[in-house]
């Protein structure tokens, strides 16, 4: 479903990713793990065009991803949930949900199922999104991407700074994406969550993918993160 081949990317003239390759199949959750600053977030941002691609290829399904315009990604079936600033804080909760629908010329009525699923969002529909709690902001960020039913989800550290109950909710959401047949590439620091959710894990070091394991492997975690 999602395939990266020899991807080099960075910001301006600074290269961060070197020769990155990975594959995420349909109905699969794949983790991208490594220390801070090794290029995990940059990998996701390069796919959606928020970091500069310098070389390499990206395939989504059978198609080569030739555009690097971030605003085309949603229509190409790629949903991205950023680590920080994942919503539009000055808009209301409902307006945040309307944005992807308006941009894709879909009916505002498509919000209905999302409100049924996330009752809290319906309760807070007229509330400014910037005033939501951390967990609610994440749920809103997921909901606005799920509205478009992407084939590929790119999720960047969704549980950072969240309460345990919110972490469990996010974990259930990510697991549900697999059930829907989507491909999920998950960047996450919470190894418990990685162990629980991921079918495969790519391990990154200094801008490169250096290992791939089926599920969580303690020895590899020790090698890349210094933890058992």
């Amino acid at each position: 479903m999602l395939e990266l081949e020899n991807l080099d990317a960075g910001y301006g003239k600074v290269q961060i990713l070197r020769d990155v390759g990975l594959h995420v199949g349909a109905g699969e959750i794949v983790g991208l793990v490594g220390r801070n600053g090794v290029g995990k977030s940059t990998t996701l941002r390069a796919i959606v065009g928020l970091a500069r691609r310098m070389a390499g290829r990206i395939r989504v399904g059978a198609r080569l991803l030739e555009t690097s315009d971030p605003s085309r990604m949603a229509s190409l079936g790629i949903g991205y949930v950023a680590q920080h600033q994942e919503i539009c804080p000055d808009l209301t909760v409902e307006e945040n949900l309307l944005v992807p629908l308006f941009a894709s010329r879909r009916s505002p009525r498509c919000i209905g199922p999302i409100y049924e699923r996330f009752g809290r969002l319906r309760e807070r529909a007229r509330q400014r999104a910037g005033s939501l709690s951390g967990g609610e902001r994440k749920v809103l960020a997921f909901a606005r991407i799920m509205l478009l039913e992407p084939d590929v989800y790119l999720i960047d550290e969704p549980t950072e700074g969240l309460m345990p109950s919110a972490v469990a909710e996010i974990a259930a959401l990510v697991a549900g994406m697999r059930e829907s047949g989507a491909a999920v590439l998950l960047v996450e620091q919470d190894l418990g969550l990685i162990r629980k959710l991921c079918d495969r894990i790519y391990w990154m070091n200094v801008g490169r993918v250096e290992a791939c394991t089926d599920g969580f492997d303690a020895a590899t975690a020790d090698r890349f993160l210094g933890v058992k």
Partner: protein
Amino acid sequence: MEQIAAQLANGLVVGTTIALTALGLTLVFGILHIVNLSHGEFYMMGAYFTWAAHSVLGNFWASAVLAALATGLVGGALLLAFAGRLAGAGPLRWALLTLGFGYVLRELAHLLFGNDFKLVDLPLEGTVPYFGGLYRVVVMLASIALIAALALFLGKTRYGVMIRAIASNREAAQVAGVSARKVYAWIAFISALLAGAAGAFMLPITSAYPTMGLEILIMAFVVVVVGGMGNIRGALVASLFAGLLQSVLILVMKPSFAMIVVLCTFMLVLVLRREGVRAAW
């Protein structure tokens, strides 16, 4: 008492004209992050375009509409021509660039139209109690209608929501499918159009001359800063306050002193509240 009421009414007329210009300035800063020091020249362009169209068509209102649209297109294209190349550039670079634009546009006006004042007759005769000339009242109402239309457009329409999404968080809006390039084009057009409309409205009152944009720019810029850069409501409140204060002060002092007092008042507001009046609500 009647004199005060008349000056307050005049203040509303002045305030709404400042607001029309200031809104364009604050929109382009809030969304495109451009400090546009040539915004006053877009106002001048609106006045000259109206004068030129009027000399051909003979109808002021049609000329004003055409001039506002033409200013929107020319001014918007000027901003967009550099927006891609200067993406991410700080406000200082934009300020210097648009300062240059403004100078070039003023000199072009000198070359094309000369230094003399270009005036058209008032399109409406008659007076309204307290407000003075009927035309001034119509201008005020037209400005309020334009501001209300803009508020409706930004608040209630699909494009308005997408524009506010880009202003709030560009990346989050983009990955949801909103084209930043289209939004930037809309905002550059609307911003220049508002300045052009203000210039068109003021043509029968002040006439058109090459440096007319400098005066309105200073006042518009001050109200935008005091209103909280990029804040539409703040700019509206500060514009009306500036118009009313200036008009009332004229009762007790010369107009030039009144202007100094207004500017000093705004400086005091900025010293006391660095974020402007935005922080007050």
